[in-house]
């Protein structure tokens, strides 16, 4: 059998089609021009031109988080490639599947410091799940197939493929391999049955169990199995920032988020628990507080697909390596119905005594804004955040009930992530309402993408919580550095309404509380890109707060 001869660039596009890719993000340049030339006449793949490669990487990431599919972006060699670095690190730390193509100088020039040559493979070694330099065009199809497979299976993550220019132009017979064969990569899916039995026994025995669920539940699509477990045995559920949406926060078993800015009752519950069921989490320091005190009363069951997460930060009693969906299904078959009345009473009491609260006065409070957004979107919007105080308020005061409706930079905490990620999310889910909650600081880190949103008619609503500060850092300065507001005052802010108008978009300023809901109504009814600039009190703080290094049950702002 003979196969068609294609160029490397054509092979890339054919492979993307085989992988079902519909939307890609990027910016062209010298070393990637052959690929762009093929994209020019390709109708089945939509290319979104961003204004900065960081925007392209975050958009691909937002697309991946909103849809569950692999996100794809492209950049040229040199500066194009280095501009992707933050986006790759962001996706790596949150285990988001991306396949990223970078142009590279021709193979005969590699290693000569040629124009726009950088060793992007070397640079991204520690922030990719795997990366490749394609040296022979005949390897290209196999590499692309491997890259998609590696990106989305096991613990997902970004994979980079560096494409020298001559490889894009060289021809070979195109044949997409039947299946991937990698002897160095075999994720464990099913989980050890003996361990699963022990875990089920412990769950049946526990008097004060708590489920601690994270982003792994989302990657594994295990939200309904998680719900089955919780409902069957009446186990309260707290989630990490990455796990918001995996369990309905409107349900009485929900404890909301735990950790540094978690609810008091989640932090009390996990501190008092006799069994912690940790699902797709990694015991990050923002979650555990003082590590030696975390779950010190409890046995810990830890289920994760990545063996390296087991025992990394916390020694666990019952480790299970496997795919959460599969493992939970088996556990659920062995779980007895239980009421846990006593434990749930204690939790109810904590919820009554220590609710999330803020002073809801005549001012335009950020927490109030989030509550209004929740009401008007009926809890069904895809909320994408930037990083800072506004991110924490968005996590605390909106009640997430659906997986993939809260999208935020967790592990890396990347300011500038939110807006381009919202663009990606909207392109992935055009039928959904996408609302980006940003800060005056964060938004300015990637505001050039206004052009991308306006140009593509993306009906996204961006809400800027404009406090005139790098607020989260200011809060730490207030609490831990004697109010010395070193370089956290944003005096040079632009007029965001005028800024968006300059791009041909719609801007609305909200100064007063009563202006908010009309502005939100208007923004959502316009069905186009709208930015709402909300002027909020400058020195509002995020509470509760566990000081770094303190145990979780010692919180500021809980009385």
């Amino acid at each position, binding site marked *: 059998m003979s196969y068609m001869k294609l160029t490397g660039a054509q092979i890339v596009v054919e492979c993307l089609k085989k992988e079902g890719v519909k939307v890609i993000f990027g910016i062209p340049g010298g070393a990637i021009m052959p690929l762009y030339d093929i994209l020019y006449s390709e109708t089945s793949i939509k290319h979104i031109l961003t204004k900065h490669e960081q925007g392209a990487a975050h958009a691909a990431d937002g697309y991946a988080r909103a849809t569950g599919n692999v996100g794809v972006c492209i950049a040229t060699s040199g500066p194009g490639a280095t501009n992707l670095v933050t986006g790759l690190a962001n996706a790596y730390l949150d285990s988001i599947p991306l396949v990223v193509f970078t142009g590279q100088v021709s193979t005969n020039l590699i290693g000569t410091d040629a124009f726009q040559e950088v060793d992007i493979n070397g640079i991204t070694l520690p922030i990719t799940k*795997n990366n490749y*330099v394609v040296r022979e065009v005949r390897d290209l199809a196999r590499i692309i197939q491997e890259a998609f497979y590696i990106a989305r299976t096991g613990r997902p993550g970004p994979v980079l493929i560096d494409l020298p220019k001559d490889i894009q132009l060289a021809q070979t017979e195109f044949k997409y391999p039947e299946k991937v064969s990698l*002897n*160095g990569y*075999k994720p464990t899916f099913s989980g050890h049955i003996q361990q699963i039995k022990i875990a089920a026994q412990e769950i049946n025995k526990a008097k004060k169990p708590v489920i601690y669920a994270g982003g792994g539940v989302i990657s594994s699509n295990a939200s309904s199995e998680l719900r089955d477990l919780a409902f069957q045995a009446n186990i309260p559920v707290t989630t990490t920032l990455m796990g918001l949406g995996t369990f309905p926060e409107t349900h009485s078993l929900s404890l909301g988020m735990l950790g540094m800015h978690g609810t008091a009752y989640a932090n009390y519950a996990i501190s008092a628990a006799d069994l912690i069921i940790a699902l797709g989490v990694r015991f990050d320091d923002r979650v555990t507080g003082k590590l030696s005190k975390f779950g010190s009363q409890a046995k810990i069951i830890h289920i994760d697909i990545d*063996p390296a997460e087991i*025992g990394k930060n916390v020694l666990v009693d019952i480790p299970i*390596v496997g795919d959460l969906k599969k493992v939970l299904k088996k556990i659920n078959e062995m779980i007895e119905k239980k009421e846990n009345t006593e434990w749930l009473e204690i939790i109810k009491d904590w919820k009554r005594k220590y609710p999330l609260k803020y002073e809801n006065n005549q001012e335009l409070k950020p927490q109030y804004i989030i509550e209004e957004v929740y009401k008007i979107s009926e809890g069904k919007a895809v909320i994408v955040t930037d990083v800072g105080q506004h991110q924490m308020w968005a996590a605390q005061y909106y009640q997430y009930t659906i997986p993939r409706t809260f999208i935020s930079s967790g592990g890396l905490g990347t300011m500038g992530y939110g807006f381009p990620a919202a663009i990606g999310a909207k392109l992935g889910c055009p039928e959904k309402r996408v609302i980006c909650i940003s800060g005056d600081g964060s938004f300015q880190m990637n505001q050039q993408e206004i052009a991308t949103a306006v140009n593509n008619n993306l009906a996204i609503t961006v809400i800027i919580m404009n406090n005139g500060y790098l607020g989260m850092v200011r809060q730490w300065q207030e609490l831990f550095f004697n109010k010395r507001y070193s370089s956290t005052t944003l005096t040079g802010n632009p007029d965001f309404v005028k800024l968006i108008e300059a791009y041909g978009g719609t801007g609305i300023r909200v100064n007063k509380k009563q202006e908010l809901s009309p502005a939100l109504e208007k923004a959502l009814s316009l069905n186009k890109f709208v930015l709402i600039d909300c002027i909020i009190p400058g020195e509002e703080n995020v509470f509760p707060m566990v000081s770094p290094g303190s145990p979780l049950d010692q919180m500021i702002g809980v009385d």
Partner: protein
Amino acid sequence: MMRHTIAVLVKDHPGVLARVAGLFTRRGFNIESLAVGHTEENNISRMTIVVEGDERALEQITKQLNKLIDVIRVRDIFPSNSVERELALIKVNTNSLANRSEIIQMVDIFRAKIIDVNSQMMTIETTGTEDKVNALIELLKPFGLKEVVRTGKIALFRGSKSVSTFKKQEE
């Protein structure tokens, strides 16, 4: 702190060494020695890495190594059930005749070899366990060492047990 000898089977292509070495440095491990070479299988290389670290840190590094796509197997090789060797070349001063015969005696005792010689110096080749190599170097020190080069340790399990027959992880 314990010293560990880790055998790592890797795919033999560019960048593998950087990937593996990078993992150790990023997690704060100092590599004491590293030996790399081809194996009985095509396109598979074997690294023998000696590091110092506590059990938990080592477990973490092993798991992280296993996560690398280019890494096929990782095994901790315990001294109790393995054979290990290192090769060293030692260039030593031989400025007097008395020195010369004393050095030759030691070379004999250690079953080492003289592989190069002139009026000023001798180059000695020795293989053995790390301890044996260390001992010979110590004994030669008083004569004046001009240069020492060591390959780093390589090791195999005793008997029919082999690294390649282990699976990468429970599958």
